[in-house]
């Protein structure tokens, strides 16, 4: 697993794709931070992180598209699958490498919040002992949430990459799947319960859609609440996707 992890990390940095991801992620997060908090004169980071997740739908596939499709195309998977490592180890190595890049970017993107803290401390000074500024627990909660959502997206991206030989189709399908998950969730929340104007009234359909609504579970993290059910949900979905990736490989061996 460690060998795969090291190889993947290296490949992110000898290919443009790693740099492109890091660059795009940091630029987008900085831009979003400007428009959602600084421009609208607020310390509230909720919408910043919400829009960041929306952007991740487009940029996470950059990170995952080549993980398995490239190996398959170059026939290098033959080397990995005949080496004394388990398929689970191989998939985990790749997943963790993508997670490291993503996590690193997320950590670096925290510099976007420095202006908020600077302005906050100045306003605190100016006011009469009142503490003004961004709420740190909310930010930490959001970061954990974004990291978990990222893990789900990466696991799904890897799963889709393992099913195709073509990087581009892996990326497009991943974007499509993630976007559909988001759109279903939006459709689900159209209208209101009290007024009886829900677009989707059928309880079963609502339940099924709720199952795939990765984004809606994020809201509690924004308020600095560590939502255990959401946490469990994200971790399970991640592991299911990783497990399915392993199964894709097992199945191919038996086909």
């Amino acid at each position: 697993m460690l060998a795969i992890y090291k190889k993947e990390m290296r490949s992110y940095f000898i290919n443009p794709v790693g740099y492109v991801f890091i660059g795009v992620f940091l630029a987008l997060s900085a831009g979003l931070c400007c428009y959602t908090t600084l421009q609208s004169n607020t310390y509230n980071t909720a919408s910043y992180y919400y829009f960041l997740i929306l952007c991740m739908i487009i940029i996470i596939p950059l990170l995952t598209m080549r993980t398995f499709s490239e190996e398959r195309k170059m026939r290098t998977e033959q080397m990995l699958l005949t080496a004394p490592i388990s398929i689970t180890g191989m998939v985990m190595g790749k997943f963790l490498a993508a997670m490291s890049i993503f996590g690193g970017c997320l950590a670096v993107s925290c510099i976007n919040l420095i202006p908020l803290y600077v302005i906050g401390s100045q306003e605190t000074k100016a006011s009469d002992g009142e503490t003004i500024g961004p709420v740190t627990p909310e930010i930490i909660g959001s970061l954990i949430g974004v990291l978990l959502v990222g893990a789900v997206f990466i696991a799904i991206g890897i799963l889709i990459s393992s099913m195709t030989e073509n990087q581009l189709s892996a990326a497009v399908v991943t974007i499509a799947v993630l976007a559909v998950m988001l759109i279903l969730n939006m459709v689900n929340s159209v209208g209101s319960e009290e007024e009886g104007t829900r677009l989707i009234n059928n309880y079963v359909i609502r339940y099924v859609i709720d199952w795939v609504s990765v984004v809606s579970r994020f809201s509690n993290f924004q308020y600095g609440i560590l939502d255990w059910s959401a946490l469990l949900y994200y971790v399970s979905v991640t592991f299911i996707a990783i497990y399915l990736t392993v199964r894709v490989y097992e199945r191919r061996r038996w086909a």
Partner: protein
Amino acid sequence: MIKISHLVKNYGNFTAVDDISFEVAKGEVLGFLGPNGAGKSTTMNMLTGYLSSTSGSIKIGGVDILDDPLNAKRLIGYLPEQPPLYPDMTVEEYLSFAYDLKNCKLNKEKHLREICEVVKITDVYKRMLKNLSKGYKQRVGIAQALVGNPPVIIFDEPTIGLDPKQIIEIRNLIRTLGKEHTVILSTHILQEVQAVCDRIVIINKGKIVANELTENISRAVENTRRFNVKISGPQRDVLAMLRNLPGICYAEVLAARDGDAYTYMIESEVGIDVRKKLFWALAERKWPLIGMEALGMSIEDIFIAVVDKTAPEGVQRPKKKSRYEGVRAAEEKEVAAGIVEKTVKDQENASYDEESSDSAYYEDHSIKEDTFASEDKTEEKK
């Protein structure tokens, strides 16, 4: 070391490998021959655990590849048909990745350097794989298989894309590896098999059609008593003399002509050596004997005969017209028939491997010391 019993692989309705069984002893070099699409690569892929078999078992050093894939794979070094190279890596990075991947315990720097010397890629050690020529890529692929010094080495067509000198080098390498390692070599180049393999397995349409020691095949080949002789003299008279010479049962002029000399193909009766008699007969008539070459049957002939023998009617190669070819083909078919019959019997008798092999399980097959170092010494001695 390797025991394959009743291996079957189906792709949907298509049976790629159909109930094959064979064993490879420790330190044996096995040649795996077959026309395109015969199931060579499928068998290799199953041997190395890349594909699973539909039924049957594969044991590497007593470890079943499906029951305990990690321990079985640890014993194997594999070069697939297309060397699995990452184009963005340098040779150094790539081999170091292979080393990590195989969780190798030998001294890394020394081990990799030795491998590079053995396959002669030291001069491209720092270069990117995508910039290497096909021959170098192939050799890096071979190097990758040797990393960790596994006791079983499986090469799927190792010499494609190499120039003749490199081919000889790789053959020598395989021969030296064969002293300590078990090697399986798939190829359709027959000289290669003849040159390096102890035993030959011929596979066609998913079935083993021949499984013989190379020397047995060679012996079968030597039994024939045919020569190409080049005689300078009037063609018709020479031919008449040859046909009348006691002990010669068949003579024919071949097309090759060299000045006033013609090449004749003669065949003697069994158990008679006509060479001396022929020399004196020619000397008497003052027809100089320019050349004489014993015509063994090459493995090519046997291979083609064996494959033809097992091909269904109608698919057979077009019958050769010349009488000379006819005679040869008849003989090949005889030898081929013998081999095929024996193999069919062997395949039927191959035991279903049911007995537990727990004792073998713990056997340590790993090769401790660096064998590559000793190879260099033996090469120097030569």
